[in-house]
C-alpha cells in the first residue's frame, strides 16, 4: 500500500502502481469501490433496461445520476423524503451526482451563464430556473449521493479564446461557493472539477488554485473533455492534469466511455470514468467486444448466420450461455434486445476494468495494454497515432508500431471488415476501416452542429432531430 488519503466520508488507498497506472480502493459511505472503475450512468435514477438488482450482480460499485434532471423530476425534496437517491432507487451501493454543469453544453440553446449561475429554460415545462453553485450543492445535499460534484462553468471542449479563461477562473470561484454551501461534508464528498479547455497552461493554473484548497477537496475530476476534441489532445490533457494532481486522491475523467480511451486514461494515471456510451450504443444494437474495432454491430446482416458469441471471454450469461450473434441479430431491433445488449455491454465494461486492475496487480499491465490494443487494432494501419503517442508517454511502448506490429504488413481487407478504407487526399495516410473514432463525441456535440449528424462513419444518427426533442435525447 503506497498512498493513502482520508476525509470524513472517503478513504483512498493505492495498492499497486505500474508507472502512472494504479489500482486503488476508494471507500465511500456505501462501501468500497475498486479503481480503475467504470461508473454506469442512470441519469434519472435508473439505468435504462437494467434493474438495481442486476447492477449489483454485475458488480457495479458506483453509479451516476444527474442533478439537473432529478431536480426537475421528482425534485430534491421528494427524493430526500424518500430516503435520498439510495432510498428511491433501492440501490445499496454508491452514487455520484453530476452538478448540472454538463447541461450548459448539452442544453446550450436552453441555457445562459452569468457569474451568479446558469439559467436554464426547462425542457419539461419551459420555466426559467437559475442554477447557482449554492443551489446545485443544496440539491445534491438533498439527493444524498456519496460523491457530489462542484458546479463548473462548462464550455464545449473545442472552444478557444478568452471564454476558456473566463470559464476556468469562474470554475475556481464557483468551487469556493460550492464548498461554502456544502452542508454534508461528513457523509458526502464534494469533488472539484479541473477546467481549462485544451490549454495545458490553463489546466495547470486551475490545478494550482485547487491545490491551495486541497485540505477540503476529497477528490478531483477532469472536466470539459469528450466534446469533440482531437484524441491526441484529449489524452495529453488527461495525462498532464493527472500528473499535476495529488497522488493520494482519486482522479475522475468525466464523460469517457470508449474502452480504448479508458485503457489509455488508466495508463496515464486516471481512476474513474463514466459515460452513457455502453448503454446507448446497446440500444442501437451495438455490442462491445474484444474484436477488431471494439464493437459488434449486431443489426448488420452479416451476423444473420454468425454462430459465435459476442465476446468469447465475456462472463455474462449471454456470452457464457452461448447466445450467438445470429440469435442476437434477431432481437437487436426488438423489445428485449436492447436490454440484453445493455446487460452485456455493462458486463464488458466491468470486466475490462477488472482486467485492468488485475494487470496492475500482477505487474502485467503493459502486456495487457498491448494485447488489448492489438486486438482492437489488429494491423499496423489501424493504429491511430494518438494511441502510439499515449503509450509512449505511459512508458508502455516507446514505439508501438515498430515494437509490436510487423514492418512488412500486407494491407489485406478480410471479409470481416465492413467499412471501406479511405485514402485521405494528399496525406498518404490510410484511415482505419474499424469503428474507432478520431474524436470524442458522446451525443451532445451533434446537437451543436459542430459535427453534423452522420458525418462520422458508423455514428448513430438519432431518430429525433427536432429541437424540442433535444432534452429527451440528452437525458441519456
Amino acid at each position, binding site marked *: 500500500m503506497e498512498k493513502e488519503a482520508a476525509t470524513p466520508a472517503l478513504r483512498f488507498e493505492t495498492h499497486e502502481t505500474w508507472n502512472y497506472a494504479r489500482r486503488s480502493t476508494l471507500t465511500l459511505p456505501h462501501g468500497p469501490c475498486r479503481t480503475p472503475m467504470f461508473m454506469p450512468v442512470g441519469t434519472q435514477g435508473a439505468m435504462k*433496461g437494467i434493474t438495481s438488482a442486476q447492477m449489483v450482480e454485475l458488480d457495479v460499485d458506483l453509479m451516476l445520476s444527474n442533478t439537473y434532471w432529478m431536480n426537475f423530476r421528482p425534485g430534491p425534496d*421528494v427524493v430526500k423524503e424518500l430516503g435520498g437517491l439510495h432510498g428511491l432507487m433501492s440501490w445499496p451501493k454508491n452514487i455520484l451526482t453530476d452538478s448540472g454543469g454538463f447541461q450548459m453544453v448539452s442544453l446550450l440553446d436552453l441555457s445562459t451563464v452569468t457569474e451568479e449561475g446558469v439559467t436554464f429554460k426547462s425542457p419539461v415545462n419551459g420555466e426559467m430556473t437559475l442554477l447557482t453553485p449554492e443551489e446545485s450543492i443544496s440539491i445534491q445535499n438533498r439527493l444524498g449521493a456519496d460523491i457530489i460534484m462542484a458546479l463548473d462553468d462548462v464550455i464545449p471542449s473545442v472552444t478557444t479564446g478568452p471564454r476558456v479563461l473566463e470559464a476556468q477562473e469562474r470554475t475556481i470561484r464557483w468551487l469556493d461557493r460550492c464548498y461554502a454551501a456544502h452542508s454534508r461534508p461528513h457523509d458526502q464528498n464534494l469533488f472539484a472539477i479541473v477546467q481549462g479547455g485544451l490549454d495545458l497552461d490553463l489546466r495547470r493554473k486551475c490545478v494550482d488554485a485547487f491545490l491551495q484548497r486541497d485540505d477540503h477537496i476529497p477528490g478531483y475530476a477532469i472536466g470539459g473533455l469528450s466534446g469533440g476534441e482531437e484524441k491526441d489532445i484529449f489524452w495529453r490533457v488527461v495525462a498532464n492534469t493527472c500528473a499535476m494532481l495529488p497522488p493520494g486522491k482519486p482522479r475522475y475523467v468525466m464523460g469517457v466511455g470508449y474502452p480504448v480511451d479508458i485503457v489509455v486514461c488508466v495508463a496515464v494515471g486516471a481512476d474513474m470514468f463514466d459515460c452513457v456510451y455502453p448503454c446507448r450504443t446497446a440500444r442501437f444494437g451495438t455490442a462491445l467486444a474484444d474484436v477488431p474495432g471494439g464493437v459488434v454491430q449486431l443489426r448488420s446482416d452479416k451476423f444473420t448466420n454468425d454462430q459465435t458469441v459476442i465476446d468469447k471471454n465475456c462472463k455474462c450469461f449471454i456470452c457464457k450461455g452461448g*447466445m450467438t450473434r445470429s440469435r442476437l441479430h434477431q432481437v437487436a431491433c426488438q*423489445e428485449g434486445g436492447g436490454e440484453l445488449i445493455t446487460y452485456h455491454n455493462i458486463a464488458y465494461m466491468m470486466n475490462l476494468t477488472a482486467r485492468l486492475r488485475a494487470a496492475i496487480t500482477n505487474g502485467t499491465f503493459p502486456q495487457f495494454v498491448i494485447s488489448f490494443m492489438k486486438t482492437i487494432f489488429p494491423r499496423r494501419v489501424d493504429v491511430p497515432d494518438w494511441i502510439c503517442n499515449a503509450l509512449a508517454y505511459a512508458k508502455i511502448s516507446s514505439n508501438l508500431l515498430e515494437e509490436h506490429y510487423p514492418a512488412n504488413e500486407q494491407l489485406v481487407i478480410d471479409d470481416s471488415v465492413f467499412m471501406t478504407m479511405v485514402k485521405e487526399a494528399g496525406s498518404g495516410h490510410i484511415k482505419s476501416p474499424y469503428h474507432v473514432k478520431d474524436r470524442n463525441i458522446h451525443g451532445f456535440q451533434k446537437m451543436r452542429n459542430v459535427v453534423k449528424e452522420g458525418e462520422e462513419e458508423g455514428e448513430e444518427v438519432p431518430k429525433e432531430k427536432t429541437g424540442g426533442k433535444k432534452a429527451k435525447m440528452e437525458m441519456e
Partner: protein
Amino acid sequence: MTSLAQMPFQFTYSTVPGSCIRSGLVKTATSEVPTPALIVPMTKGVIPHVTYDIQLKLPESKMLGLLYTDLCDLDYDRIMRSQNKTAREFLFPEIIAQQPNSLFLRIRDPSTTNIVGPANGKQTAVQGGTGKVRIDSTSFLSTIFRTQPCIASLPCDEPIVEEPVNDPEAEKKALKRIRKSVMQTIGYGDQIIEMIKNPKLPELLNGALTPSDRLPALFSVLEGGWSIDSREHAVKHVNRLCDLSDAIKGTVVSGLDQVKPENISAVLAPTKVLKSDLVRVVSVLGTPDSIVTCILNGMDLFDTSYPIQLAECGYGLVFPLLTDALYAALQVGVPSYPIPFVINFSLPQFQLQNTPFVTTAKQLFEESAELLQDCTCPACTAPTGASTAYIHHLINTHEMNAVVLSSIHNLHHYQAFFTHLRAKIAENKPDLPTILLAYSQLLQKARTSQEIVMNKLGKEYKNFE
C-alpha cells in the same frame, strides 16, 4: 396412426367431482407443467422486458409461448436448421435452455390481432415483423420440423367479429363469417393430418424433414367466436380430428376475446364434450376473473400477455390470491368492502409512497389488507426492491425501467395466482366450485371497480374481456 416419430407428450389429469374443474400435469420432453397454468408470452424468444437472468427467478415459467412468425421472419427456422439447433437451443442462453421449460408454438399473438385476411381453404395469413406471412400445411410442417417446439397449435382463421346488438341482418352476416372461420380452421387441420399421414411427406416438405426430426404435439384450434352453435360444430370436428390422428394432443379454445364476459361460461359449455384427454388451452383471454371462469369450465392452460400489457400501461397487479384467508372469507360470501386489483403507478398520490406495491395496496384498502399477500418477486424483494414511488417516478420520466420492473412483478403475481389456484384445487374441498365462482366474482368486482385505461403508456390494447 402416423408413422412419424412423435415427441414425448403426456397429459394426466383429474376432475373435481361434481364440477368441470381439472388439475393435471403436462409432461413434455423438456418439462413437467402442472395445470392450470400460465403460458408465459414471448416476443422473438424473450419475455417482453424481462431478461433471461430474471426469467430464471420466475421458476413457474415452464411453458413458454412462442409466435410462429417470430420463427419465420427472416427465415430463422432455416437458420436454426443450418446451425443444427432446435428453437430452444437457438433462442435461449444456457441458463434458460438447461431449465425445465417447453415451447408452445402458436399462430395467434395473444397481445394483438395478427391474423389477417383474406384466408382461403389452403392457407391463412398472419402479420409478421417483416410483413404478411402466408401459412399453408407445407410451410407450417416445415417450420415445426425445423424448430422442434414441444407443442404446436395448428393454423387457424380467426376474424374479429363483434356481436351485433339488435341488428338481425348484421348478426346473420357475422354468423356467416364465424362459420366460415370454423370451417377454414377445420380444413387446415384436416390438410395437416392428411399430410403427416402421407408416406411421401419428406419429399413434400422438400428436405425440411430429416430422419431425426420428431413431430411435436399438435393442438387443434377451436374457433366459433361468440356463437354457441358454431362452437358445438367446431367441437365435433376437433373430436373427429383426434380420431383421425393420435398426434392431436390438445385444443386451443380461441376467439374468446370476442365474447362478452357474462357469456363465457355459455360459450364454453360445448367444450364439455371435447375428448377429455385433450389439453385445453385458452388463447388471448387474460383477466383473472375470466381465467377462473374458464377453470370452472374445465380449461387447463392460459395463453395470455395480459400481465405484461398491464405493466406496459402503467399498472401493477395486487389483486388477492386464493390463500387460506381468502378461501375462508369467500366461504362466507363475496366481501362487500373494496378489493384492490391494480396499483395505477402514474397517480400523483404515489409520489411519496415509498413502500412495496402490495403494502401500498394494503394501506389504500385497509379493510381487505389481511387478504393481500406480500410479494416475493425479484422486483419487490429487498434490498433492491422497487417502491411504488420509484415506479411513479420512472413513469413520469418515461424511463423504460418502469415497464421492466412492473412486468417482472405482474408476471410473478400471475404465476403466484395460478400456484394458489392449483393448491386449492389439489385440496379438493367440497365447496371448491362455489368458492371459485365467488373468487371469480370478487376479481371481476375488483377489476371493474378500478378504472384501467389500456393505452396509458402509448400503446392501445383491445380484446381482453
